Each structure stands twice: as C-alpha cells, then as structure tokens.
C-alpha cells in the first residue's frame, strides 16, 4: 500500500504515523511537505497531528490553504482515501473536505489521556477491523466537534459518525470523536491510532484502525 503522510510546519506526529503504517501494514510511506504534491498512485493520504503553522488564526486554518491541499482535495475527489488525525481532522474541516469544525475544549484545558470509544460503523475503511469498543489516546486543546443542527442531523441520519466517546472529554456535540464524508473515503478523528500500535507504548487498539483499510478492501 502506498501512503503519503503530509507534513506542515509544526506537524509533530508525521514520523509516528510513518512508522506505524510501515510496521502495521508494511506500507510504502512517503512524507510529503506542505509545498509539495501528492504523488500519483498514492492510495492513502494521512494528515497527522501536531500544531500546523502554530495553530495561528484557528487550528488547521493555514494548513487548509497550503499548496499541498489542492492535490489532497483532488485525491479525495477521485475517491482516494484520506485520514486526518487530530490536527489533521481540524485541517480537513477547515479545508471543507469534512463538515463542521473543531472548537476549544469545553473545559478550556488541553486533555492528554486515553479514552474509550464506541465504534459506530463496521463498513468504513477506517473502522472495519475494529471491535465494538476501542481505547485510544487523545491529546488536544481544541477537539470539541461542532456543527449546526442541520449538519449534525445529516451526519447522524446518514451514519457518518465513525467513533463516539463513551465519556465525552471535550464537549464534542453528540460525543463525536470521528466522522466521515458522504462518499466515505475521507475521515477525521481526534484520537491517535498511531500512538496505540505497540503494547509498550499506549496499547494496541490503534492497529485495528490501520488494518481496517485492508478489511474494507477485501469486501
């Protein structure tokens, strides 16, 4: 599998993602800089976590207009897989590839801990290999998913919520931790699956998220 991990100035989970996808899926991973383009033949684009452009203006807002995003949008429009994790989720929302926006946590505090998540969909390339509940690390100050009532209703009715917090840590509407687009090929999640791919480092539940793309492909 060919994976492109996009790195913006201030991204800090790019290496974690590259290592995780290489180890778990034996993927060929290239790190693509914010001024470059996604190479033809790429199957999955990962927008990793971090603080792209220092979270200036709004988290993800400057990354969303970076040159690389034109080719990410083109990849998505052609049906290619895109996964945004944490800051990557914020970037996808700011870029309009996913609806809604991530806002400051209700408590105003940065939260860094593990959370239990309810897996809502077994038919997504990002959750197909997951059991009914998984435990993943979160680490964010702005992870409260917000969308207006109409958008929220549409997400729920069309089954586009992928993961929900069992115990809401940030004030996310409807306890949302991960969503997908209407076509199903673009997803964003606040939890960090790449940080839970080694029993010595924060558990192994993230492996199921990474493997989901293979399970879905076998259908």
């Amino acid at each position, binding site marked *: 599998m060919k994976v492109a991990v996009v790195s913006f100035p201030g991204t800090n989970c790019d290496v974690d993602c590259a290592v995780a996808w290489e180890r778990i899926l034996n993927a060929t991973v290239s790190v693509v800089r914010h001024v470059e383009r996604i190479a033809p033949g790429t199957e999955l684009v990962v927008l990793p976590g971090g603080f792209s452009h220092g979270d200036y203006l*709004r988290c993800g807002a400057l990354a969303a*207009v970076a040159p690389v995003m034109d080719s990410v949008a083109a990849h998505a429009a052609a049906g290619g897989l895109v996964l945004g994790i944490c800051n990557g989720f914020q970037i996808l929302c700011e870029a309009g590839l996913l609806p*809604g926006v991530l806002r*400051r*946590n*209700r408590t*105003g505090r940065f939260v860094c801990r593990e959370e239990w998540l309810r897996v809502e969909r077994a038919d997504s390339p990002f959750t197909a290999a997951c059991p009914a509940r998984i435990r993943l690390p979160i680490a964010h100050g702005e992870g409260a998913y*917000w969308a207006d009532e109409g958008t929220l209703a549409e997400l729920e009715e069309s089954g586009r919520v992928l993961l929900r917090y069992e115990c809401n840590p940030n*004030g996310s509407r409807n306890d949302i931790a991960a969503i997908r687009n209407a076509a199903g090929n673009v997803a964003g999640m606040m939890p960090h699956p790449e940080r839970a791919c080694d029993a010595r480092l924060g558990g192994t539940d993230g492996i199921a998220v990474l493997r989901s793309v293979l399970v879905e492909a076998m259908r």
Partner: protein
Amino acid sequence: MNRYDLTVTIMPKPEVADPQGQAVREAGQRFLEREGAAGQLLDMRIGKVVALRCTASSAAEAERLASLLADRMLANPNIEKFRIAIGMVEPVSP
C-alpha cells in the same frame, strides 16, 4: 491603483459557545466586584481584528479581496461572522 486599509472584525456567532470569552468575563466580573462594580458586567465575547492593506483599482475591488480572504480563510463561516470596514490610504503612482 489605490492603496486601501481594511479592517476585518471577526466574532463568534451568538449561538456558538465562547469558552475564552466566558473565562475572561468571569475573571472580569470578579475584578470589577473588587473595584466596586459588582454585577455590572453582563457579557463578554472575544473575537479578532485583522488589519490589512492592499492595492486595488476601486474600493469595491478592495472590499471584494478582503471579503474573499475573510470568507475563505480569516473567518470560519461555521462558527464566526465578520464585517469589513474600509478606508483609502493614498493613490499609488503608476
């Protein structure tokens, strides 16, 4: 071409919670209480002001540029609204 100064004021929409504004309001209320003005600070919302300067052939074009920036980048229409104020600085010699 003329040079224009524009101010984009961005505020969170009223229906969207503003934890920063709320935290600062609560601190402000405690402060004013000590200053003898208990109960007088009713609300506070925090937004952003962006001052920008551009060249354009007309005020309308300058406003269009600022509006494009504000709508697509400076503000997030999901949660924020903005308004633009314009003033010409000086003509630019060709």
